[in-house]
């Protein structure tokens, strides 16, 4: 347990050392969201219908961009080798890294999403659902993403390959997440979608650290 807090501490420290990185991930989210109206045009009604989809896709992309740096720097400078050789079980360390990743990328997105939602003229009920859905969804994105990051570690063309691997895996989160908000807007309850999202999250919490660990061991062989 000590090792988990140590690794979370270290990763947060590193994130603070490059504060700009955390902030820019946020701005990336904002910018991507703002690009769509620029490309699509300004009609409010149209934008309101596609808002949940756009917000979720942007959240997906923002999480994904940070993924490439989840293990790669540790791999490049040999820290990952040292983690494998640390006396603490690798699975725990990996969980710690995923938690730190969520705190630095997922959580800020959740907090920011309502503001962007307002720009698309969503009402307060829809905003609430959006936040809950993201709160369930972003840890899921970090967990799934970690598997992809580990699989593409040290592989040529890692960055883009990573997105090709991970984005299809993100589709369920996208469908249920954006679906929840849309269901709410169109008057159906969002409950079903949200509980499915929660179920996926529970599954990932058990499964993803294990798969990530296995992938990391393979990458280092």
């Amino acid at each position, binding site marked *: 347990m000590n090792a988990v807090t140590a*690794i979370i*501490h270290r990763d947060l420290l590193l994130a603070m050392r490059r504060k700009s990185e955390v902030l820019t991930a946020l701005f990336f989210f904002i910018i991507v969201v703002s690009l769509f109206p620029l490309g699509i045009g300004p009609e409010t009604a149209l934008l309101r219908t596609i808002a949940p989809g756009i917000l979720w896709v942007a959240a997906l992309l923002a999480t994904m961009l940070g993924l490439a740096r989840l293990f790669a720097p540790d791999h490049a400078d040999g820290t990952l080798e*040292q983690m494998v050789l640390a006396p603490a079980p690798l699975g725990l360390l990996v969980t710690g890294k995923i938690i730190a990743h969520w705190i630095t990328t997922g959580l800020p997105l959740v907090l920011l999403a309502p503001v962007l939602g307002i720009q698309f003229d969503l009402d307060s009920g829809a905003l609430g659902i959006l936040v809950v859905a993201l709160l369930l969804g972003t840890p899921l994105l970090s967990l799934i993403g970690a598997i992809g990051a580990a699989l593409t570690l040290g592989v040529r063309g890692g960055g883009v390959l990573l997105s090709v691997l991970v984005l299809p895996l993100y589709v369920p989160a996208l469908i249920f997440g954006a679906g929840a908000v849309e269901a709410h807007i169109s008057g159906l309850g969002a409950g079903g979608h949200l509980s499915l999202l929660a179920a996926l999250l529970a599954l990932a919490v058990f499964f993803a650290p294990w798969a990530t660990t296995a992938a990391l061991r393979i990458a280092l062989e």
Partner: protein
Amino acid sequence: MLTATGLSCVRGERCLFSGLDLAVEPGEWLHVQGENGAGKTSLLRILASLSPPAEGEIRWENTPIKALAEDYYRDMLFLGHHGAVKEDLTPFENLTLSSKLDGTALDEAAALKALARFGLRGREDLAVRFLSAGQKRRVLLARLAVRQAALWILDEPFTALDVKAVDMLSSLIEEHVKAGGICILTSHQSMPLPNGKVLKI
């Protein structure tokens, strides 16, 4: 005691070595020698359990290291070509955080002392990326000095070090071996330390 029997290593279609046996007792050190590309790095990574051998088995205190897993890691310290130092953190942070990961608590004074010992006085709070090549390696040496491990596996530890640092490292290894530790290392320079064995591949 570390023993390996019948190790072989294949890279691509090339067999780097095969049927390699070795045994190193506590209080001994082993100098792995060979030309560039002979397979020294490959051997050391196999001994550190970072990559599996094509054939053969490695035992630590008579138990296969595969079965030991984390217990082996606790006893072993591996320093490879890569520094495993975070460029964005300071030497001090690097040292304390890596010892936390190793599960040993290191107090501030001990960390500062270790850094000062390796000539990093005044650089404790400078991000590692500003350090010179040799200073980066010195951060690793400080780690070597504070980590309690019976088995050291060092891949070209003398790279980039100046004469004084080479001496410091040599005496560090000597101490370690005298105290009943084991050290396996590669280097293209010769090392005049007692109790050394040489393995040529």
